[in-house]
C-alpha cells in the first residue's frame, strides 16, 4: 500500500508534478542528446581514422617510427601477412612502403608522406577508394599512377592525367626522382591527412627506391569489431616481440584523448543536468513535506514508523523522477533514432571540423546500455534528492504536526 500511496501522492498536485517531470524529461533529452552527439562525433572520427589511415593496429620495424627511414623495414612480409590474415577478427592486412617525399608540379611543391600500396589488397584495410571524387583507384597495369587529394591538386595546380615528380630518399640514402601521373583525386574528412598523403603502387615505389621484395615499411591490420583490435594486437605483440605493434590509440593519442574525453564530457554534462534537476526535485519535495505536515504527523501518530515515512517520500520522489525519466529517455530514443539515421548537418562549420579530422555530418550514437546507465543516474538523483526533504519530515513531532495548519 505504501507504493500505492506514494504513486497517488505524486498526482495530488498534478500540475506541479507534470512541471517537474517535464523539466526532468527535457533535461534528460538535452543531456542524452549532448552525450550522443559527442559520441557520434568522436566515434566517427575514430572510424574515419581507422578506416582511412591508421587501421586497427600497425606493424613496424622498431627503428622505423623515429624518422620514417626506409632502411628500417619489416622483413618476410608474405609470411607475416598470411599469419595476420589468419587471426580471428582480422578482416584485412596489407603491407605498404611509406616514406617522405617532395612532390612537385610545374606550379608548386609540397612535402608529403608517400605510400606504396598493394592495390589489390589495400582496400581491405583502407576506404581510400571510396573517398575518390575524381578519376579511379590505383591500377598496377597503368603506368606510374598516383592518387592525390583535392587540396593538393589545387595547391600544385594539377588535375587528372597531370604529371608530378616525387623525390624520395631511398633505403640506401640516395635521393631518387620518379614521375607519376595523377589517376585519382580523393577528399576525406581529414584535411590534414589530405594535405600530406599521396598513394602510389607498391611496385612503382619499390622500383623507384630499390625496396626489396617481401619487405615493407609497415603492415596495416584492420580488425572487426573495432574494440577487438587491442586483443588481436596483444596476440601479435606476444608472437613477435621483435616487431613494433601499435594500435590506433598508440598511433593517434589525440584521437584516443578525444574518445575518452567525449564520453567523460557527455557523462559529466549529464551529471550536471541531473544535479540541477535534483535541486528542482528537492524543492518540490520540500513543498510536499510542508504542505502535508499535518498528514505526516497523523501517519506517525497512528503508528507509522519514521523509516516507513522516509520510504514513502523516497518512493514519491522516485516515481516523480521516473515519470520524467521514462518520458525523457523515450523522447531521447525517438529523437536519436531519427537523427541517427538522418544525421545532423554541420556544413556551416565543415572547414573547421575537417581541419581537426572530423566529418561535418554527425550521426549521434548511443547504446542500450547507456539508456540503462542514465535510468540508474536518474534513480540515484531521485534518492539523493529525497534525503533532505525526508529528513525534514522525520524531524516532525507528531503531536505538533497534527496541530499544523497544513
Amino acid at each position, binding site marked *: 500500500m505504501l507504493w500505492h500511496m506514494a504513486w497517488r501522492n505524486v498526482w495530488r498536485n498534478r500540475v506541479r508534478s507534470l512541471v517537474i517531470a517535464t523539466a526532468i524529461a527535457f533535461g534528460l533529452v538535452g543531456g542524452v542528446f549532448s552525450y550522443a552527439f559527442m559520441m557520434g562525433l568522436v566515434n566517427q572520427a575514430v572510424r574515419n581514422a581507422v578506416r582511412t589511415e591508421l587501421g586497427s593496429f600497425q606493424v613496424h620495424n622498431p627503428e622505423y617510427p623515429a624518422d620514417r627511414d626506409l632502411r628500417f623495414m619489416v622483413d618476410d612480409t608474405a609470411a607475416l601477412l598470411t599469419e595476420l590474415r589468419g587471426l580471428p577478427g582480422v578482416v584485412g592486412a596489407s603491407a605498404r612502403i611509406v616514406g617522405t617525399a617532395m612532390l612537385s608540379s610545374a606550379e608548386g611543391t609540397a612535402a608529403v608522406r608517400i605510400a606504396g600500396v598493394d592495390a589489390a589488397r589495400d582496400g581491405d584495410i583502407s576506404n581510400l577508394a571510396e573517398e575518390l571524387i575524381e578519376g579511379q583507384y590505383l591500377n598496377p597495369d597503368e603506368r606510374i599512377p598516383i592518387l592525390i587529394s583535392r587540396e593538393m591538386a589545387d595547391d600544385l595546380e594539377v588535375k587528372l592525367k597531370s604529371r608530378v615528380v616525387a623525390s624520395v630518399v631511398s633505403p640506401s640514402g640516395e635521393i631518387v626522382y620518379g614521375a607519376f601521373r595523377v589517376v585519382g583525386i580523393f577528399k576525406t574528412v581529414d584535411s590534414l591527412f589530405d594535405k600530406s598523403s599521396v598513394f602510389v603502387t607498391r611496385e612503382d615505389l619499390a622500383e623507384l627506391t630499390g625496396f626489396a621484395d617481401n619487405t615493407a615499411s609497415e603492415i596495416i591490420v584492420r580488425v572487426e569489431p573495432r574494440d577487438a583490435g587491442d586483443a588481436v594486437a596483444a596476440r601479435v605483440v606476444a608472437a613477435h616481440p621483435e616487431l613494433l605493434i601499435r594500435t590506433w590509440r598508440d598511433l593517434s593519442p589525440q584521437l584516443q584523448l578525444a574518445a575518452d574525453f567525449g564520453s567523460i564530457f557527455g557523462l559529466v554534462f549529464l551529471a550536471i543536468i541531473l544535479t540541477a534537476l535534483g535541486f528542482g526535485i528537492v524543492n518540490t519535495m520540500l513543498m510536499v513535506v510542508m504542505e502535508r505536515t499535518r*498528514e505526516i504527523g497523523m501517519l506517525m501518530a497512528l503508528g507509522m514508523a519514521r523509516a516507513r515515512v522516509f520510504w514513502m517520500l523516497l518512493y514519491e520522489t522516485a516515481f516523480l523522477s521516473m515519470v520524467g525519466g521514462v518520458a525523457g529517455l523515450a523522447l531521447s530514443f525517438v529523437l536519436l533514432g531519427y537523427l541517427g539515421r538522418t544525421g545532423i548537418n554541420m556544413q556551416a562549420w565543415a572547414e573547421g571540423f575537417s581541419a581537426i579530422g572530423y566529418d561535418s555530418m554527425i550521426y549521434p550514437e548511443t547504446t542500450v546500455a547507456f539508456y540503462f546507465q542514465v535510468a540508474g543516474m536518474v534513480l540515484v538523483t531521485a534518492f539523493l534528492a529525497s534525503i533532505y526533504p525526508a529528513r525534514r519530515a522525520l524531524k516532525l513531532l507528531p503531536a505538533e504536526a497534527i496541530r499544523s495548519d497544513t
Partner: protein
Amino acid sequence: MPVIDARDVYKTYEGKGIPVHAVNGISFAVEKGEFTAVIGPSGCGKTTLLNMVGGLDSITSGQILIGGTHIDSMSERELTDFRLHRIGFVFQAYNLIPVLTARENVEFIMELQGVSAAERAERSHQLLTDVGIAEKADIRPSQMSGGQQQRVAVARALASQPEFVLADEPTANLDSHSTADLLDMMLEMNQTSGVTFVFATHDQRVIDRARRVIALDDGKIVSDTANG
C-alpha cells in the same frame, strides 16, 4: 487493572525562562469500557494530557501506565509500535489519508501491523459496516461528508483492535445531526463491544452523552464525576 493509569503527571514547558505547567500533577485512571470525556476551556491541558496518554508527547514527571505497561520510559520506536498496536486515535479534522479510499484507510493500519490481506479485507468490511458506511468503502475522503469521514476515522481507530480510543475534539467540525449520529454510533460500540473511549472535548453534546466527565483547569483536575 485500569486501561489508563496516570499518576501525578506533569508537563512543563519553558516559556521565556518561566516554566509553564500545561499539566500540573494529574492522576486518574480509566477502566475498560468507559465512555469518558475530558473537558475544560481552551488551554486547560486536555489535548496535552491526551497526547501524553497516547504516547505522542513526553511527560516531564510522573508515570503513565497503559494496560499495566509504563509508556513514560519507552523509546521513540517503542512508542510508535505501542501506538500502532494498542491505541486508536480519532482526530478533530478527520485526518484520513486523502489518496486512499475508506476501505484502504482502514486497512492501512492493519497493513502496518502486518495483518494478512485476506484478514484485512474481512475486518475492514466489518468495521465499515459497523460504523454504517460500508457503501462508501471505495470512495476517497474528499467525496464524503464530514460525518462520514469521521465514521471512517472511528473505523480506522478500531482497526488495530486497540485497548482504547482517544478522540480529540472529534465533533468540532461536525453539524448537530452528524455529531448525534457519530455519538450514537460510538456509544453503541461502547455498549455492545465494550470499546473504551476517552474524549477531549468542550462540545456540550459530547459531554451530555459521556458517562464520566473529568474537568480540567490550569492543568489540574477540578472535578471527576459520573454522568447520568
